[in-house]
C-alpha cells in the first residue's frame, strides 16, 4: 500500500537534528524535565566529533543486543556547577558490561522530556553505540519509579552510578524503592550529582516495556515547531493532540515544597477563547487542567504550556504573569492507561482524589 504522505523513517540522528530534538524534548517535558540548552551544546559537540548516531526500533534489535538506560541524577542547582567528567560515560558502560557479563550495544533515554531526552544522543555518539527510538516515560515525571518498565513488571537487574571523581557503584536492590533510597544516598556522597545506567534489557524484555518511537517523534515535533509558519497548530497536529485554550496567564501560585515546585497557574482565554478560564495544577510537571470545575485532562495524559506565538515549551519555573500561552494536550502512551500505569502515575499517585478520564485528543 502506498503511503507517500508518511514521513520518512528516521534511521539516524545527525548534528542537524539536534536543535529540533531539543525543541521537541522540551515539548515532551510537560512543564518539567529541566533546561535543554547545555545538553544541546554538548550533544552537538559529540555528534560533530563522532558522527551521526544510528537510531533503531525495538524490532531492529537482535539476540546480541543489550539495551540500558542512561541519565543524570541529582540536584539541578549542583548540576549547573559540577558538570560531568569526560570519563564518566565510558566508566559506566565498562562497569555495566562487567555486571551484565556481555556487551552493551544500545542506549535508551530514561525520560524523553527535557535534558534527559537530549543527553543520550551525545553519549551514544561518544560510545559508538546505537540509540533506541524509545524511552521509559514518553514525557517527564518527577519520580524514578514512574517508568514504563515498572508498569510492565520488568525488574531492574542492576544500576551503576559514576561520579565526577571516578567512584563507581554497582547497585542491586530488591525493588525500585530501595534503588531510589540507595541511589539517593550515593548521589549525596558524590557531591549531589551522578550519571547512572539502569534497567539492562534484552531485545525480548524491552518489548512492551518501553514507550516506543519517542526520539523520532521529538525530532518531528521539534521540526514542525521550528519550520512551520503556524508552529502552535503544527505541533498539536504532529502530536495528534489539541490546543485546549489560548490566552494569558492571569494568576500564578508557585512554591517550593520538598524539593518540588508546586502550585497552580490560571489562564484567561483571549481572542476566540475570550470568557473562558482554565487552571492547571503543577508539581514540577503540569498535572491537571480544570475548566468550570471540570477536569479536562489529567496525568498521565500530557499537558504542555507553550508560547502562543513561537510554540516553544515553557517549563513551570519559567511561567510568568501576563505571558501569552496556549495549553497543548495530547494522549498518554497506552502503557500509562493500564491499571498498573494509572496506579503509578494517575491522579491518585500525585495525591488527587479524582477518577481518571482519558483525554480524547486522539492517540499517537
Amino acid at each position, binding site marked *: 500500500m502506498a503511503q507517500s504522505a508518511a514521513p520518512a523513517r528516521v534511521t539516524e540522528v545527525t548534528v542537524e537534528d539536534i536543535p529540533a530534538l531539543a525543541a521537541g524534548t522540551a515539548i515532551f517535558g510537560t512543564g518539567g524535565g529541566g533546561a535543554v540548552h547545555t545538553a544541546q551544546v*554538548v550533544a552537538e559537540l559529540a555528534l560533530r566529533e563522532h558522527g551521526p548516531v544510528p537510531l533503531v526500533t525495538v524490532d531492529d534489535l537482535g539476540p546480541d543486543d543489550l539495551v540500558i538506560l542512561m541519565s543524570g541524577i541529582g540536584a539541578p542547582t549542583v548540576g549547573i556547577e*559540577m558538570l560531568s567528567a569526560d*570519563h564518566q560515560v565510558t566508566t559506566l558502560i565498562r562497569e555495566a558490561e562487567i555486571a551484565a557479563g556481555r556487551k552493551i550495544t544500545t542506549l535508551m533515554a530514561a525520560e524523553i522530556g527535557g535534558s534527559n531526552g537530549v543527553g543520550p544522543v551525545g553519549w551514544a555518539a561518544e560510545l559508538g553505540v546505537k540509540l533506541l527510538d524509545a524511552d521509559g516515560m514518553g514525557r517527564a515525571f518527577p519520580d524514578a519509579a514512574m517508568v514504563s518498565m515498572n508498569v510492565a513488571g520488568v525488574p531492574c537487574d542492576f544500576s551503576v552510578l559514576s561520579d565526577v571523581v571516578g567512584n563507581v557503584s554497582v547497585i542491586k536492590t530488591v525493588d525500585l524503592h530501595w534503588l531510589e533510597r540507595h541511589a539517593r544516598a550515593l548521589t549525596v556522597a558524590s*557531591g*549531589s550529582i551522578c550519571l547512572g545506567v539502569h534497567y539492562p534489557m534484552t531485545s525480548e524484555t524491552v518489548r512492551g516495556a518501553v514507550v516506543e518511537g519517542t526520539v523520532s517523534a521529538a525530532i518531528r515535533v521539534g521540526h514542525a515547531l521550528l519550520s512551520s509558519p503556524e508552529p502552535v497548530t503544527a505541533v498539536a497536529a504532529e502530536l495528534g493532540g489539541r490546543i485546549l485554550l489560548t490566552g494569558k496567564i492571569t494568576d500564578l501560585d508557585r512554591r517550593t515544597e520538598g524539593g518540588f515546585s508546586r502550585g497552580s497557574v490560571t489562564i484567561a482565554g483571549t481572542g476566540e477563547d475570550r470568557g473562558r478560564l482554565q487552571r492547571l495544577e503543577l508539581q514540577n510537571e503540569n498535572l491537571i487542567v480544570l475548566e468550570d470545575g471540570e477536569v479536562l485532562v489529567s496525568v498521565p495524559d500530557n499537558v504542555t504550556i507553550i508560547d502562543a506565538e513561537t510554540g516553544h515549551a515553557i517549563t513551570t519555573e519559567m511561567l510568568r504573569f*501576563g505571558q501569552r500561552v496556549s495549553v497543548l494536550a495530547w494522549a498518554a502512551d497506552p502503557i500509562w492507561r493500564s491499571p498498573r500505569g494509572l496506579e503509578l502515575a494517575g491522579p491518585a499517585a500525585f495525591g488527587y482524589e479524582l477518577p481518571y478520564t482519558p483525554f480524547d485528543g486522539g492517540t499517537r
Partner: protein
Amino acid sequence: MSPRDLSVGVDVGGTNTDAVVIDAAGNVLASTKQATTVDVTGGIRAGICAVLAELGEDRSRVSRVMLGTTHATNAIVQRRQLDRVATIRLGAPAATAYPPLLGWPQDLIGQVLAGSAMIRGGHMVDGTPIAPLDRDGIRSFLDGAGSFDAVAVTGIFSPSTPEQELEVADLVRAHVGPDTRVFLSQDIGPTGLLERENATVLNAALYGVARSVTEALVTVVAEEGLDAATFFAQNDGTLMSLEFAAQYPVLTIGSGPANSIRGAAFLSGTENAIVVDVGGTTSDLGVVVNGFPRESTLPREIGGVRTNFRMPDVLSLGIGGGTVVDVATGAVGPGSVGYRIAQEGLLFGGSTPTLTDAAALQGNPVAGRSLPRLDRGTEDALRAGLAVAHERLADAVERLSLGRADIPLVVVGGGAFLVPDSLPGVGTVVRPDHAGVANAVGAAISLAGGRADTISPLADREAAIAEASEAATAKAIQAGADPLEVSVVEVLETPVTYSDRPTVRVSVKAAGPLARLADRIPSRV
C-alpha cells in the same frame, strides 16, 4: 568655599555621548547630546565641556563624575580590541566533558584564547575537595601557553569555597611575574560553571577596552581641572569606582538599559514604575522596583556567548516612531524607516506611512508639520495601525506589571507621543522633563552596590544570610557606598535538592548612596 554638591552624569552610547549635571536635590542644571567619537575621549570631552560651560562659575561645585557605557558590549559584539587570555579551570576530573569556551563562536575564540587547561582541584557543594590542587600542572600550562595579556581562573564551587582561586592567583603571580593580571570567577558571578567561566574570560579580555574608557574619563576630568571622584555605572543600576570598573569591565555590560530605566524613574519622581523608551524602531520596556531595575532571570547571550550577567529585564517591541504601517495588509512593523523618517514619513513629504503619521492624525507630534491630504484607505490603515500599536504597548505593560494596575508608566524617548495618556492596566502616564538624556541622569543618580552568594545547610540559613550580607556590604563599600548608609536591598534563597541535609543557596545584594565626602575612594580593589 562653595558647596560641592553637583554630579556630572555621562552616557557613552554607540551613536551619542550624553552628559548632564544634577544637584543634590536632583534638579537637572545642564544637559547636552554630542556625537560619540572613535577614540571615546573626544565625545566625553565634548559632552563634559558643554555642560561645564553651561555651569560657568558653578563648575567648582562638581564633586563626582559618573559614566555609563555600552563600550564593552560593543567590543565583544564587534570583536575589537580584545585581550588574549590564558584560561585555567580548577576542578578536574569534574566537568572535563565540557571544555572551557564551549559553544563560543570560532572567530571570538581565535581572538581571545591563548590556551586553556582543566587542572585538578575545585570543590563539591559541601566544600569537599574534588581533587588535590595540581600546582605543577598550572605552572607547566603557563609555561606552554602562547603569549597572553591576562589569566582567568574558574574553580568549581568557588562562589562558596573561594580560598583555592585566591591561592592560584598568588601562584600565577609568583610564577609569571608580580604584575600579571589575574581574574577570579568568584568576583564575577554566582554558581553556574560555564556561564561564570565565560564571563570571567570575557572580563579578562575586556581589560584593555575598559582601560581606554576609564583613562579617557580620567584624562578629561584632569584637563578640565575638576576635583571630582569618578565612577562607572554597572548593569544592576549601581556604581563602582573607576579602579573597580577597570578590574571588572563585564559588570558594565547592560548598564545602558539599566541607566535609562533608573534615570526615567528618577526624573518622574517615583521608585516603583514601568518605564517605556520609545525610539524610532523599538519600544524598550523595563521595570524599576524600589529604585532598581528588575533583573532578568533568563541567561543572556552577548556576541554569541552565553553568560549569566545581571541584566535588567527588558522587553522590546517593534513599535517606534518610524515603524511602517502597510496600507494594503494593515500590518504594523516590524519594519521601520528609522532615522530616515525625516525624508520618508508622510509628515515630512515622503511616501511611507509610519506610526508617527498615524499619531499626527490625532495630535501634533512634530511641531510645524502637518499631514498632506490622505485617501480614505491610508487614513483608515493609519488609525487601525495606531490602535494596534496601543494594544501591543498595553499588553507589554500588563505583562511587566505582574497584575498591579496602580504602577505609573514613565514615558521617554523620541517616539513618546505614540503612548496615549491612558492605557488599560496603568495607573498614571508620566512624561518627565529631560527625558532625552535619561541614560546620563541614570548614571548620575546611581547607588553603589555589591552582591555575594553562598550555599549553606538550611539549619545555618540565618548565619549564611548574615555572612553573605556582610560580604555584599563590604563589596558595596569597596564600590564607593557610604558605610553609614549602605543596606541589604535583596535576599534570594534557592533550595538545593539531593543533599544529605536540607541546603539552601543564598544570594544577597547590598547598596547605598555614595559616600558624601568629596574625597577619593580608596583605590584598593
